[in-house]
């Protein structure tokens, strides 16, 4: 599998995008925008205090794909997501959010001030035209129906995340954006949460853009991992990124070996079909529409 460093401005390999490849193509400039993408960014630059927090980032998320952003603290992960959502405006570059793309957002820190009384039910319906039945059904879908009449400020970390995902689902999103959903959640809760996200992607054909603080759990389910450190260091399939030199430089060689251990474990624990995945899958050609076909082989 060819692995190229992102800083190498090599011409883009023509026929398209091969999944499973850490090609660093996020860095190739003036890449044409995929018209079927749920959200696209080209050449994003975001500068604060004379420092480029984000420089030259391209990013697309297609329907039905899970894209995970990893990177060290201060790498600009949250900033990038805020740019993609329109919460912040880039200093250079463009973010294209087709008007028909509905986005559900699960922010990183959702610590509700105890001064604000708010039941989960009331929060889910706030500003939306939804029936109480729809609210309960969304809570059931995320496994948080027990919290319906509880106060938002008293939920545990995992419950809060599930309630936030339920609110996102009530907007009937095409794209789910989650900023470190596993923060403040224990190890088991974290695996459950990622399982839920994977299930929602499958049942609702959602595109998912996820920031992960801990790549070991999420990576196996991701279609694409983007390693960010202000710029895109490398990107591709989880296994490919883990072996990438840039990744090893950012996270240390231990992280790469820890990841390999996890992938092995994951194949046994979570494969519903019972067949074991090879740790390094052959690269799959991605269908031009970015549809779910590529996933069905997983």
């Amino acid at each position, binding site marked *: 599998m060819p692995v190229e460093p992102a800083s190498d401005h090599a011409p883009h390999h023509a026929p398209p995008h091969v999944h499973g490849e850490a090609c660093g193509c996020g860095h190739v400039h003036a890449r044409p925008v995929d018209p079927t993408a749920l959200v696209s960014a080209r050449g994003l630059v975001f500068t604060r205090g004379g420092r480029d927090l984000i420089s030259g980032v391209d990013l697309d998320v297609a329907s039905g794909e899970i894209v995970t952003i990893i990177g060290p603290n201060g790498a600009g992960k949250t900033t990038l997501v805020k740019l993609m959502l329109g919460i912040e405006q880039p200093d250079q570059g463009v973010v294209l959010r087709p008007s028909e793309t509905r986005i559900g957002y699960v922010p990183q820190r959702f610590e509700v001030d105890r001064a604000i009384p708010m039941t989960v039910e009331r929060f889910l319906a*706030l*500003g939306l035209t939804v029936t109480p039945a729809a609210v309960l059904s969304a809570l059931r879908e995320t496994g948080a129906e027990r919290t319906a009449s509880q106060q938002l400020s008293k939920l545990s970390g995992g419950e809060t995340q599930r309630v936030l995902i339920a609110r996102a689902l009530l907007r009937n999103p095409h794209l789910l954006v989650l900023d470190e959903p596993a923060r403040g959640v224990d190890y088991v809760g974290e695996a459950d949460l990622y399982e839920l996200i994977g299930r929602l992607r499958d049942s609702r054909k959602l595109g998912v853009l996820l920031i992960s603080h801990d790549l070991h759990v999420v990576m196996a389910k991701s279609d694409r991992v983007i390693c960010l450190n202000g710029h895109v260091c490398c990107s591709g399939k989880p296994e490919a990124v883990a072996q990438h030199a840039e990744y090893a430089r950012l996270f240390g060689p231990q992280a790469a070996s820890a990841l390999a251990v996890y992938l092995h474990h994951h194949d046994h624990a979570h494969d519903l079909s019972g067949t074991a995945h090879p740790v390094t899958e052959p690269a799959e050609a991605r269908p031009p529409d970015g549809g779910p076909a590529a996933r069905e082989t997983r």
Partner: protein
Amino acid sequence: MFDFPEPFVLRALAAGIGLAVVAAPLGCIVVWRRMAYVGETLAQSSLLGVALGLALNIDLTLAVIVAAVIAALVLTAFGRQKLLALDSVLGLMHHAALALGVIAIALLKGPSIDLMSYLFGDVFAVTTSDLFWVYGGGAVVLALTVWLWRPLVRLSLHEDLATAEGINPRTPRALFDILLAVTIAVSMKIVGILLVMAFLVVPAVAARPLASTPERMAVIAALVAAVSVVAGLALSLYTDAPGGPSIVLAMCGFAAISLLAMGRRAS
């Protein structure tokens, strides 16, 4: 001490209860957004409005509203700069406005003017034209508060989430600052510059332990405020205590009872 309420008592009651209902929902949002210090600064800036009104010989309530709204706009502009923390800006503006207001009034009217009535209010001096401000202006403020309620609640909960969901945070925030300025300016007559924020914030604090949703908190805060106006005015009439501080004391009493009850339930 009195058999039937005198007209001045009725006017005081009418103004106090009307303002209580208008101010309570705004007070809740002030508490949620931790804006008490912003409100204090707007209130102290109102004193400059008094000076302005005396100098130009125009309606004092109108002059105070204009000054408070200008202060709100200045604060909004200051809020965008990153050089100084908003807290520092408020600390500067709040005391500068108070000092400047006191000096301006003293120079304009000489030492004979009753500064106390501006600082602590004079609820029993409420006139019929004040009632027009309370009910006319109050109805507009209340209607706008209802209209802005959901965006403001969502922005108070989580600004990034609300923005990502399509709310432009600037418009509701700026309108809220103006509503707050108008309410403070009109309330000043009753409880005075130094106590006006208590009039907004304390009923909200008292209502919090009793409420499970934002709407209930606003309604309970309005009830607490209205009952406090009646209790405070009664206290004032029976003991000759000043009216505005009596109302605020009654509010604080309710808040203390409510918080104690919550503390007992939690333990």
